[in-house]
């Protein structure tokens, strides 16, 4: 497949990861040409991070790997991780998930980058004594040049806690990249990022590729896979289901799982039938000239809006524009600086409900779900059967209720949270990034249920999401926030 003289940057043969006798990842084989890109696409739980760890050689002690790994043609047994550890930084690099956690919080950014130049890339330990100081200042200079090249000169003397997530990602990239490893493994670089940030990440990776680096990119983000191009492999439950050129594979997926995965991408969701603005429906809540700021920073000002029964309104705006605060003001959880919120007078307080980004945080963690829900049913004198019916519609098995919130998966818990909210016969549901922590397939399911059930009980939905595609697919209209003012589309 490749030119004979050009070695593969990475070749993996029959790689498996085991927990005891249980195979977590099985029989993976692939190769990345020098300067090439391979994207591993899969949901969380598909074993893609384990795969990355197995290749790096830093699997947790309870796991073991089998198979063969060829790094720039050099063979090593997959089980023998320590051999590849010697090449960390110099021959194989890893850009970790959530790079802001990967930077040492107590060290300035510049020193963390310089450290790689000093200790990893200058491989002359014998000369250290005579030129330790010199090496250090050279490394510092290289680090500053590198930071400047990515527009980070202002952040050089800052600590990780003082810089944004995007900057942290670039810093981590530089620290990883400094020793010039020809192969970089990138783990979920776009997790939780909004559109602009995703663009930055893509640019970074494309620049690295342009320098001749080989990339192994692990992601669940179909958009990124498409943008990076190169080779694509789809992973399901620890097994490769499909592999090929990205463009071709994305255009014509053969495997059913790949098809479902691609269909779950909000960009591919079916557009809803066009609905008229329900001006004739009753006004649930009216916001008049709302403004809010935190300290010096103004979030939004002069926002006025009416929300009618049964409509889905998406709140949009750049991050930091106060989307969550706006929703909380509408619910009455937060007081606006100026302006007022008028709720329909005949509605009880419990008619205004909220769905949270992290469903696990919205339940009392120490008591089983059943107890929480029973408490609610008892408090309002409701029928348990009504709840059971709701749960059935949410496709929740009753046995799940005997678990604690953290013992239930995010998608399931979000659906239970939805059932809990619907039980209150709400007039308005404020859904604050309800699916941003969920995998694409689950996300699609939860959003669909939310909209469908809300419409069924006639509840309005105030949806905050960073994903423009979701907005496009489900929202009846958009409410854009900005510090200057608002615009309704």
């Amino acid at each position, binding site marked *: 497949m490749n030119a004979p003289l050009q070695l593969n940057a990475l070749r993996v043969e029959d790689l498996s990861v085991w927990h005891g006798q249980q195979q977590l990842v099985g029989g993976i084989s692939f190769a990345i040409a020098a300067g090439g890109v391979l994207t591993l696409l899969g949901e969380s739980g598909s074993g893609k991070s384990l795969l990355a760890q197995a290749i790096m050689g*830093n699997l947790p*002690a309870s796991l073991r790997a089998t198979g063969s790994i060829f790094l720039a043609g050099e063979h090593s047994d997959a089980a023998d*991780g*320590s051999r590849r*550890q010697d090449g960390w930084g110099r021959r194989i690099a890893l850009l970790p998930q959530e790079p802001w956690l990967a930077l040492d919080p107590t060290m300035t950014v510049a020193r963390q980058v310089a450290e790689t130049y000093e200790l990893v890339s200058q491989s002359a330990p014998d000369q250290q004594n005579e030129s330790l100081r010199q090496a250090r200042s050279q490394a510092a200079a290289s680090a500053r040049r590198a930071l400047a090249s990515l527009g980070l000169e202002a952040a050089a003397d800052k600590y990780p806690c003082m810089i944004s997530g995007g900057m942290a990602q670039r810093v981590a990239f530089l620290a990883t990249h400094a020793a010039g490893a020809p192969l970089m493994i990138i783990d979920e670089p776009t997790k939780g990022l909004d559109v602009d940030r995703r663009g930055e990440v893509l640019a970074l990776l494309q620049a690295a590729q342009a320098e001749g680096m080989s990339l192994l990119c692990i992601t669940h983000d179909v958009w990124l896979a498409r943008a990076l191009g190169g080779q694509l492999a789809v992973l399901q439950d620890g097994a490769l289901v499909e592999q090929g050129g990205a463009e071709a594979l994305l255009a014509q997926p053969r495997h059913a799982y790949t098809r479902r995965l691609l269909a779950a991408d909000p960009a591919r969701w079916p557009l809803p039938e066009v609905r008229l603005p329900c001006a004739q429906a009753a006004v649930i809540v009216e916001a008049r000239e709302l403004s809010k700021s935190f300290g010096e920073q103004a979030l939004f000002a002069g926002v006025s809006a009416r929300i009618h029964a049964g409509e889905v309104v998406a709140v949009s705006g750049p991050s930091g524009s106060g989307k969550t605060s706006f929703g909380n003001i509408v619910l009455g959880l937060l007081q606006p600086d100026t302006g007022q919120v008028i709720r329909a007078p005949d509605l009880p307080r419990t008619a205004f409900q909220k769905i949270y980004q992290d469903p696990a945080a919205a339940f009392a963690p120490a008591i089983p779900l059943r107890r929480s829900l029973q408490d609610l049913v008892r408090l309002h004198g409701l029928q348990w059967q009504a709840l059971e019916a709701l749960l059935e519609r949410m496709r929740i098995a009753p046995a799940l209720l005997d678990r604690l919130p953290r013992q239930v998966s995010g998608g399931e818990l979000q659906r239970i949270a939805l059932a809990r909210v619907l039980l209150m016969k709400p007039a308005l549901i404020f859904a604050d990034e309800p699916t941003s922590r969920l995998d694409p397939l689950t996300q699609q399911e939860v959003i669909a249920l939310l909209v469908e059930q809300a419409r069924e009980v006639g509840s309005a939905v105030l949806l905050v999401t960073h994903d423009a595609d979701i907005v496009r697919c489900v929202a009846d209209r958009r409410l854009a926030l900005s510090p200057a003012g608002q615009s309704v589309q």
Partner: protein
Amino acid sequence: MALDRYFPSRKRRGLLALPALAVTLAATGWHKALAHGDESGHAHGSIAQADKDILTVVGPWELTGLDPTRSGYMFARMEVLETLLEVDDAGQLQPSLASAWSVSADGLQWRFVLRNAQRYHDGTALTPASVLACLQRAQARPGVLRLADIASLRLEGQTLVIVLRRPFGPLPYLLTHYTTQILAPASFDAQGNVVAIIGSGPFRIRSIALPQQFDVERVPDSGAGRAIQRARYISVSRAETRTLLVQSGQADLAFSLDPPSIRALQNSPRANLLSAMLPRTTILKLNAGHPILADVRVRRAISLCIEREGIARALLRDPDLGATQLFPPSLARWHEAALAPLHTDLPQARSLLDQAGWLPGSDGVRRRQGQRMELNLSTFVDRPELPLIATALQEEMRQIGIAVRVIIGNSSDIPAGHRSGQLQMALAARNYGNLPDPVASLLQDFGPQGGDWGAMGWDNQEVPALLAQLAAIPADSMARGNAERTRIVALLQAQLPVIPVVWYRQTCAVSRRVRGASIDPFERSYRISSLQWT
């Protein structure tokens, strides 16, 4: 991953050595940096054997101030300050700064011939005028000189003349007391406060760190052979710590050892034990003015419930120390061998209380007309055995139906309680050899108003009168007062204004590094000038 990779073995050793190195540095460098100036000349390597040539004395007493009335006894014990007269082990007066003394026939005019050519430690001459100044100062302050009714103090050449208004036989003994110590004029500031200790004894002060420590050195050209040249007193309040210091070879002389420590030191390779009976008695001071204790039957009942021998055996490890009368055998003139000893008899104690109208209540505590027989017993921790004895007494009094609350406080609570009249019972140790002639002490204790460490609210005129008669007898013809003494002892035994509990034996640990140690029965001196290094 392989954890051993974290430390190549060389690095591991290096890291482990780091704290050890730092501790060594701290032990030497740190101390060097902060050591007191006068010790900076010492080598720092030898931690335990430091101060080989310094005799270290430890005792419980703290230096509460420079004034002789406060801590003068410590400077006397370390032989820094001297008094006009001294006493020998038998209590006989000896010349010191005064070489001779005499009294007029009417007993009112005393003459003390001062020695010539004495010098203070600062090199100035010990002039009669400086002696007079010190005594005048002592007279103006609380102290024993007030016991004698002094009309005037004056000088006639080398002779000090003291004129009294009433005869006072024990006067020379007062001049042995530490409150009459002689200090050089340079010791005082303009207001007459003591700012330095400059005396005339064989040792002079090298440094003082109040309240815990002072160092002395021998005055040049005194002492021969391997005599002690430097000594140090350290106040160590806990008896265990003093014992540990002896056991670890850090202390050469240790005083006021508690009985368990004595046992611990008996076979010590480092130290010998010396002991001597002191004229000190542990007494139960009673407020005879208190409604419960005013009745002599109650006082006798309390005395009868005390197991003196048991307490002496269990707590002092010496059954002979049970105090069958107030004065121990070492006070030969005052100890009456013929006197019926105080003893233990619980049935008799109970019947005495019955007679006094105190009848057993349902809770075991006696009552009279609705009043419970409850008493407070104050004591203090300066002497380690006192709280223990108090505890034993508490239980013994409970056996005859008296509820006692033990209050362990400070020694000053007792004089304060005496003066405020709040005190009910107190357990204290009284040294009748405070002045070598007990008459002066007894005058303080059993005078017309009683005394801080003696009778309280005791309605008795006979004892004060007898004591006054004794006081009029000149010090060198003490043999004359036998009849009075016998009567006083008998009265105290019968009336029990204070109840004797146990006598006292001073035990001192002496390092095997020195020889020639002896105990002063009057606790006036540690006699370090006569010690020799072995």
